């Protein structure tokens, strides 16, 4: 049990102190405004767009719907933590080469959702891809390029294993 005006969050493996925060703040807000991690985007703050997707204890969830102060016992992973040396992950690389990024607002959330999908299922069907990404809204691409990027990663990973 813990009661908190000051609390600590574990994000991408590192502990971060959060102080003088209103306890009802969302994890999205705390990540962006208090911890200097603006990779997760906020568009709707009601769980509908997926641009704020992070992992909490391994589950891909909307950080706008997580009360930050309730996540003190959890491992949080954000898009910033996917690759810390500045290089791109294979999913990010494929988003670039397949033209899946236009304005880019949806991209961090989609990259998190695609990594999560492919970690659990290395050869998803078209329907499984659509289902897995149904919580991420993109206003620009029409999704075709995003699905192409997923296909590319699947193909490259398969090739790498042969």
């Amino acid at each position, binding site marked *: 049990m813990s009661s908190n005006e000051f609390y600590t969050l574990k994000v991408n493996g590192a502990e971060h102190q959060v102080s003088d925060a209103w306890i009802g703040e969302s994890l999205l807000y705390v990540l962006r405004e208090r911890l200097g991690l603006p990779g997760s985007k906020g568009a709707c703050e009601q769980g509908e767009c997926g641009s704020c997707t992070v992992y909490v204890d391994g589950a891909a969830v*909307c950080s706008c719907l997580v009360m930050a102060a309730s996540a003190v016992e959890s491992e949080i992973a954000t898009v910033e933590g996917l690759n810390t040396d500045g290089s791109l992950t294979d999913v990010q690389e494929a988003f670039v080469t397949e033209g899946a990024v236009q304005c880019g607002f949806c991209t961090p959330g989609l990259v998190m959702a695609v990594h999560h999908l492919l970690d659990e299922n290395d050869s998803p069907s078209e329907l499984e891809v659509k289902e897995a990404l149904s919580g991420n809204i993109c206003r620009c691409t029409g999704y075709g390029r995003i699905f192409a990027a997923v296909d590319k990663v699947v193909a490259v990973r398969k090739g790498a294993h042969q």
Partner: protein
Amino acid sequence: MSVLIPHSILEASEILAQHPAATILNGGTDLMVEVNFNHRRPDSIVLLRNIAELRDWSTDAASGTITIGAGLPYAAIEKGEIARLVPALAQAARTVGSPQIRAAGTMGGNLGTCSPAGDTLPVLSALEAIVHLQSIEGARSVPFADFMVGPKRNSRQPNEVITAVTLPITEQRQGYSKVGVRNAMVISVASACFAIVNDTPRFAMGSVGPTILRAREAEAYLASAASNLNDITEEIAHEFGRIAASESRPIDDHRSTATYRKHAIGVLATRLALKGI
């Protein structure tokens, strides 16, 4: 304001006894929307997400039932063994929001909110589920029909935690369907669960009344008109749908009209009677 994080149901009920005004938080997929938009500014929060026993589920062979913890996310209900044992519940769980919502959202939260559009609720109504509650004073089990008492109103006391739900394992056909404007991320404009329990048809309707409604007349009609509940004729299924629609009590709101909802619930009734799963 503070966030209290118990690790057992007992600890949670002790906290609620001390802080009767505290707000329970589980997946946050209903509560945080209200907090983000300033519709609610909770005084203190009791987080249930870290209570492992609320995520348990088990079956009881003697009574032929399954008991599912109120804190188990939809993602664990929509597939696997639970989906095999209670397919209608899994179908309902699969229609909730998006993968992100289903990774966080729980049946406890669906029952806590008790919206007439809550997707698991028609299943709990048709299967006549038992809702289990726990407070410092003890445990209490309530039939779903006595739990939901109005739109967004239930008979939970402020100091009670919803701990689990018990459902029969019927091994007979059952199914859940909903109508909305698109496939993903949609709150239903009409929803329904059809189930055969002990060779008797049951039909529960969501989003077409202040609470989940059972179509008793339609159920009785089907029980007497159909000689084989697994092979219902088109004609009987249509009459079943017509009666069910006449028993619905929908309203106009921002999501749909009463007229369309009545039509939709009749179509769902006919289809589910013909197809079941």
